[in-house]
């Protein structure tokens, strides 16, 4: 019998990804930084550094600190701003033979809408909305911590966005499924989760926080069990595709998220440690399917038996 080709392709709305391995925003630069280490085109998609209307300088240093099996970051969403993003970065992306997702952030629903509208006119493949940001109008409570705000922002952005729309959820909530359902109802094509968990570290010598911003976002293997639980809970509630994120560094991790129901995964902190890891995961995932005679990756997704 002829060996059948293994099919790793997955879909988010009309958008077809050649495989489910994506990179997570803020951990893969604009892709070019990684060109020496892997073939960016081999990935399912890349999500680039979060972008705001105007450039942001971000938080003062120190901005990163290591924790047990994890790290805290308080980069403060440093980015070049929408205009330079379009003029300088998008031409780079146009050379890639894979999907490029813009991650957007703002202080108000209006910010997000303008970003989505403007980016819809570019060659960007899809838009991911980071709703972990504080809503300035609501006293700085993050959009993503309230189902109503999550619904409102999704619905508003949806109207301006002609690209596949991904809503990225924060884990710092009592019930993430409520937020995911709100995003689905608001018209999202997919949800991605989790963003970082809020954490802190203290330098006992100076008696000061280790991050200038005092608190920061926890990421890395330490948070994987929490991320996996949330992905599984959300997959049991929504019908749109779910993108799993959080502490993924090995092919076993990828498989755990797929089994829990994730259509795709994003690799975050692991890129910072092993810049070739995302490329390796594509190779290893392919090998896993072949060794286990799984012709189509769809057979894995959501196949957890509970």
């Amino acid at each position, binding site marked *: 019998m002829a060996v059948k080709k293994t099919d790793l392709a997955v879909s988010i709305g009309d958008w077809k990804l050649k495989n489910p391995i994506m990179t997570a925003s803020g951990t893969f630069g604009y892709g070019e930084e*990684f060109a020496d*280490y892997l073939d960016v085109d081999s990935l399912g998609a890349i999500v680039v550094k979060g972008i705001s209307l105007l450039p942001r*300088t971000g938080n003062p240093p120190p901005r*990163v*600190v*290591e924790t047990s099996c994890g*790290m805290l970051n308080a980069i403060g969403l440093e980015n070049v701003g929408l205009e330079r993003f379009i003029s300088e970065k998008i031409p780079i992306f146009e050379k890639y033979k894979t999907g490029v997702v813009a991650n957007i952030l703002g202080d108000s629903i209006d910010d997000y809408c303008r970003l989505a509208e403007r980016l819809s006119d570019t060659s960007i493949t899809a838009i991911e909305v980071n709703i972990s940001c504080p809503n300035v109008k609501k006293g700085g409570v993050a959009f993503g911590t309230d189902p109503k705000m999550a619904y409102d922002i999704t619905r508003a952005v949806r109207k301006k966005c002609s690209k596949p729309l991904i809503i990225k959820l924060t884990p710092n909530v009592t019930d993430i499924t409520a937020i995911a359902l709100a995003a689905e109802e608001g018209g999202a094509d997919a949800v991605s989760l989790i963003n970082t968990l809020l954490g802190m570290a203290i330098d006992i010598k100076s008696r000061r926080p280790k991050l200038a911003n005092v608190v920061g976002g926890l990421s*890395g293997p330490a948070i994987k069990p929490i991320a996996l639980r949330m992905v599984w809970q959300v997959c049991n509630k929504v019908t749109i595709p779910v993108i799993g994120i959080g502490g993924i560094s090995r092919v076993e991790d990828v498989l755990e998220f797929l089994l829990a129901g994730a259509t795709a995964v994003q690799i975050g902190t692991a890129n910072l440690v092993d810049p070739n890891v995302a490329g390796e995961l594509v190779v290893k995932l392919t090998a896993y399917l072949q060794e286990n005679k799984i012709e189509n990756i769809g057979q894995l997704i959501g196949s957890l038996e509970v």
Partner: protein
Amino acid sequence: MTVDNEKQIRAVGEIKDIRCCSRDIFEIVIAQSSISRNAQPGQFVMVKTAVDKSDDPLLRRPLSIHQVQHGVISLLFKVVGRGTKLLASFKQGDYVDILGPLGKGFAVEQQTTHFLIGGGMGIAPLLFLAETIRLERPAEKIVILLGARSREELVAVDGFFAINGVEVKIATDDGSTGHHGLVTELLPGDAVGAVYCCGPWPMMKAVAGLCRKQEMECQVSIETMMACGMGACLGCAVQGVDFIENGYLHVCKDGPVFEARKIWL
């Protein structure tokens, strides 16, 4: 795992030698032909210190390239926390996972005299720099000024004596060897030439100040916390003098070596 394209690579190198130079300072020699071929003085590598199958410590540690020889690189490091402690426990024959060469190193241009000023572990990148200057500019004068807390903390000085026509001057805080005082006091008030400096902030600040006064070009090598070392995380921010217009500089990409006049020291 190796993506050898004559540029930055991730590779596993065999430890050819690892030895304790002093109480808590170690030199490690790693076989890595690609990195040794491409490295520039002042560049660094990111070293994984966790043992295989362990996710902790998670992040790599940045270490300057101390010396480059026949397909090997050597690193000189001080045990200050758990990462360096783990690295010190590696043994000859073990393999170590490194990224490199990373960052922008020292720029060497024609000069009457090259002053290499190191304080504490700031000595690490200077040997490679001195050897490179000697190789590329055999006729120019090289002066090495080294500061340390005490004789015990002063390691890896021998390497400099092995270089042809290099002058080495030493200062210690406690006077246990060399000049009793600060390394900055070793720089002649009428010195002419280029200064390359690596050490603690107060020392670099003082050196940069002297250079401004004496109108000497000065390059400094900066340390910050780093997560990736390759420009992806933006964790290594530092203010340049043009901060208001252009935002933060990033030590792992824009540095670690900067012209002193471009940085707020």
